[in-house]
């Protein structure tokens, strides 16, 4: 019995003293969480913001990054930027990175000069980046690979640092708030945290200092900057707005069904709650017939 109580005591003690020092990773950064129209339970995308975000993608990011799991037609769909179909058709037809058209009827895949055969993109085609493959991309980018951005907003997250109880508290907070915006929060922080390296920091060749990037050295040159703000159709726009809008656009690109999912989610929750109340009343009626 002694052994057991001391074991139980050991476990209880363990619970009390399991104050693990913060894990000493080389990278520490407090990601600043942003307000997103699509955050939380009622959130929905703002189609104007998605349109502005697409403009940033087209003018800046598309120079290096593809968006290949998004098709042009998605830009027309409900719950997205909802551009008019005619303008997207035109956009696709003029998109510089064209789909391959070979082999043609003669079996040729390239023209006489050796250029691969291509054709203008249609609504049903993916939004291609400038490079045919990773090898070409790396060759053009100093050996670094600009990842396809179609699911990047789901492939990145802001981590919950802290001692174990802080860790659990933060987890609980995120579940309670329905927090799923780690991806866009990360992208926003990445885009806005380029800085001069601190004294003594040895920056690798062709790399840039970024406070939000794990390891702090990123091959991507700052794509947005306060000196070179992208102006929107209304002539307005700031650096921060640029960063917000592209992050929101990438969140949509990774999760185009969010509007529909959240709207249906409420109907389902309401249905479940009402059904639970009714089932409970029924169950009580049945059990009231007998002592229990």
């Amino acid at each position, binding site marked *: 019995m002694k052994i057991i109580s001391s074991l139980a005591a050991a476990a209880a003690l363990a619970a009390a003293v399991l104050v693990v020092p913060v894990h000493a990773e080389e990278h520490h950064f407090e990601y600043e969480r942003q307000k997103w129209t699509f955050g939380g339970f009622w959130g929905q995308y703002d189609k104007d913001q998605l349109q502005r975000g697409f403009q940033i993608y087209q003018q800046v990011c598309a120079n290096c990054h593809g968006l290949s799991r998004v098709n042009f037609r998605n830009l027309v769909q409900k719950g997205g930027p909802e551009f008019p179909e005619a303008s997207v058709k035109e956009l696709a037809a003029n998109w510089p990175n064209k789909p391959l058209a070979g082999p043609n009827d003669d079996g040729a895949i390239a023209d006489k000069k050796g250029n691969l055969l291509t054709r203008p993109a249609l609504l049903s085609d993916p939004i291609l980046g400038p490079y045919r493959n990773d090898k070409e991309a790396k060759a053009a980018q100093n050996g670094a690979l600009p990842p396809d951005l179609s699911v990047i907003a789901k492939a990145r997250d802001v981590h919950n640092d802290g001692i174990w109880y802080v860790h659990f508290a933060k987890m609980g907070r995120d579940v309670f708030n329905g927090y*799923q915006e780690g991806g866009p929060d990360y992208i926003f922080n990445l885009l806005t945290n380029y800085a001069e390296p601190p004294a003594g920091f040895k920056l690798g060749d062709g790399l840039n200092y970024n406070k939000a990037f794990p390891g702090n050295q990123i091959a991507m040159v700052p794509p947005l900057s306060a000196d070179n703000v992208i102006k929107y159709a209304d002539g307005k726009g700031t650096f921060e707005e640029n960063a917000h809008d592209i992050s929101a656009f990438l969140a949509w690109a990774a999760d185009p069904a969010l509007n529909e999912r959240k709207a249906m989610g409420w109907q389902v929750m309401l249905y479940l709650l009402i059904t639970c109340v009714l089932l409970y009343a029924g169950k009580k009626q049945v059990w009231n017939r007998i002592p229990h």
Partner: protein
Amino acid sequence: MSGHSTYEPKSNVSKWFDERLPVVRLMHDSFVAFPTPRNLNYLWTFGGILVFCLVAQLVTGIILAMHYVPNDQMAFNSVQHIKRDVNYGWLIQPMHAVGASMFFLAVYIHIFRGLYYGSYKAPREVLWILGVFILLAMMATGFLGYTLPWGQMSFWGATVITNLFSSLDGVIPGLGTAIVTWLWGGFSVGNATLNRFFSLHYLLPFVIFGLVILHVWALHVAGQNNPTGLEIKQPADAVPMYPYAVTKDVFGMFVFLIPFAYFVFFMPDWLGHADNYTPADPLVTPPHIVPEWYFLPFYAILRAIPSKLGGVIAMVSAIVILVFVPWLDTSRVRSCKYRPIFKWCFWAFAFTCLALGYLGAMPAEEPYITWARIFTFLYFAFFLLAMPIVGILETPSKLPRSIMESVLGKPGSTGGHMPAGASAAPEKR
């Protein structure tokens, strides 16, 4: 509980049918008239919830398989295609992914329920052991399924776990490597691996289904345990399954559906890992390779042991030890309600499992390693020290004379049965 049937066919057709294949009678006796203890609490609704989870996984999984492509070049994009282009694919896919987590949540509650109320004791040993087999089959299915989206965690998780077999090289040189190559169908995790994993992931749930039928059969032979751990000794101790247990089970299931739907609709990715949205790349190892949350305690045990073979043995033992629980526990009394010391061991054990889960998610470095060793010791101490020793030393508190008495708080007509009926020894029926 078998033998006497209360089914009465109502029409000529059903009578005719009953004489030829009494399947309706079987269903009636098993799920309508079946006597259930009247004092079951909501922890007893998890068996039914698990059946729901299994069926939900089968239905969503079969739909996903209609669109999924088990090919190393196409798998990742085919999942994206399901979520983006397939009608309601954005709903089916997270139902299956979140469903796996909810399935494990339910099964862990179900197992802890069994541990707390001593449901593994005679005459329910076979029922319990079938449960352990189900758990093993579920784990295999979950692991195989997680490789299918072919993201970074899929690929590296599959690599790390299959590689565990190479520890057998320490027993017979070359044996482990040979097994790993055989499992992979090549010299690394690749297309051949993905194909066979898909095939097995589709197969195993049907094996689970078969095991569940045996599990429920065994349950209906032994009868359900209940919070007092007492046997049903008189008709008043039990109520017919329909409508009593059924109304309760259905209500419990709908309550369970609320967090289920919450995750599916509002946080479909929260239970997974962001790295799995990066397509598998054999040349880039992710900084932290972590399994799904429901494997974390076992992963912590694996890494707590300094030797690779030792770690594998410890991890496998951590699950297989459940098979021996009916004989490791020496107590006469089933339910922790009447076991003042073992009750605390139970809660310490539950805490140990949570702590191991946390440690499994942390990187393999100090101080986590030391803590993982301490909790691994406590994990096994529960089974190998607490169960046998406390059972002998502990004085159980006073048991009610019958289920009915525990419900009414005063003696019912006990029909001359002894209170010792709570003992785990098989009773003559």
